[in-house]
């Protein structure tokens, strides 16, 4: 089932008086406050760090990969040599993920869209509310809530506009106007601008 994109207001991050319940980051904060101890079971950290794609620095000089989560489980090991042996199975988490998604879809389809609020029945509202409260208390509740929302479309515009600004500044600072890399950059910027104007044209009409 295709999820409709959720438009979050761009200004929602600007002020500090946005409702704490609506800000996903505060859900992350609550999730962490509910787990004050650092001695989180290794398998749990392993699964979570795998799910997050935690290959932070996976190509460092020592071939470090996905050990940070395990090390943070309260103990630490000497790693002067060799590769680490990852005991976590991403497949387990993936199965858990898909089961959760199926359960949620049945009860809260489109529950986050403003247009559907009026048409929701009381049972759906109560089920979504109970799910929301439950998900806040279940492990990684903030993660599951976040998964229900698509990236807000204005964010992609912000991304493109910012990339265009950065690349334009890079072009102005280039010393060799005839260099093939400079010309390549120029063509790329023109392509981005054309794409942006096409999109704006489509939005207007």
């Amino acid at each position, binding site marked *: 089932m295709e999820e409709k994109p959720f438009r979050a207001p761009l200004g929602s*991050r*600007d002020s500090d008086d946005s409702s704490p319940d609506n800000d996903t*980051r505060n859900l*992350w*904060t609550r*999730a*962490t406050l509910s*787990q*004050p101890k*650092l001695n989180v079971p290794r398998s749990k*950290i392993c699964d*979570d*760090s795998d*799910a*997050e*794609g*935690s*290959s*932070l*620095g*996976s*190509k*460092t*000089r*020592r071939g*470090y990969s996905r*050990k*940070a*989560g395990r*090390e*943070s489980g309260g103990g*630490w090991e*000497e*790693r*002067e040599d060799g590769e680490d042996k990852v005991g976590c199975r991403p497949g387990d988490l993936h199965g858990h993920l898909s089961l959760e998604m199926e359960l949620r879809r049945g009860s809260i389809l489109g529950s986050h869209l403003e247009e559907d609020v009026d048409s929701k029945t009381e049972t759906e509202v109560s089920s979504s509310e109970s799910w929301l409260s439950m998900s806040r208390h279940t492990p990684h509740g903030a*993660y599951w809530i*976040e*998964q229900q929302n698509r*990236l807000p479309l204005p*964010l*992609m515009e*912000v*991304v*493109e506009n*910012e*990339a265009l*600004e*950065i*690349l334009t*500044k*890079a072009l102005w*600072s*280039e010393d060799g106007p005839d260099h093939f*890399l400079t010309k*390549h*950059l120029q063509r*790329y910027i023109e392509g*981005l601008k054309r794409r942006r104007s096409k999109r704006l044209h489509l939005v207007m009409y």
Partner: protein
Amino acid sequence: MKLKQGSFLWYLYLDKLYCLLSVRNVKALLEYFHLLDVHHNNTLNDVLFYHFLRHVTSWKRTQIMIVFNMLDWNAMGEIGFDQFYMLVCILLAQQNHLEEQFIFRHSRPVFELLDLDGELRIGADHFHMYNFLFNIKKQELRELYHDFDITGDRRLNYKEFKLFTIFTMDKYQEKQKAEKEQGKTAPLKKKRPHRFILSSKLF
């Protein structure tokens, strides 16, 4: 260092426990990286990297080039998405005052980044060179080497560095607890004068 308000990175956030981005944020970051990858090499060269950091941070040229040299651990003159992701996590950790937690959670990759010579030891001068990344003050650096250089060679090996991260993490958590308790008692103190004013108006 502060991220430029309204920039793309400003909208991202780290998980406060694991100091990593969510999958959704990583996807968006990947799109952003691909937009900046002008030459379709899955990398950013030094010029693009410099202009990117100049745009989103308040770092100077020398600081940006230090970071580039640190991340370009293959000495290719370009950095790939892995290194870019790590950089973004470091920036967000600084932005959200999670440096202690970040170093604790990712002590191994941080140690390897700081170990420029590959000697499995970090000298004080290297640490000092990167203190703008992790907000470590000079005094703290002196204490670090004084308290944790167990072997006495004036450099930190990984075990000593890990001990340091555990210690700073404990201090950070105590500080948070103290702040939380202060936050609880402060509203109670504020209410009393208000009640007094009301009662003085009535009588």
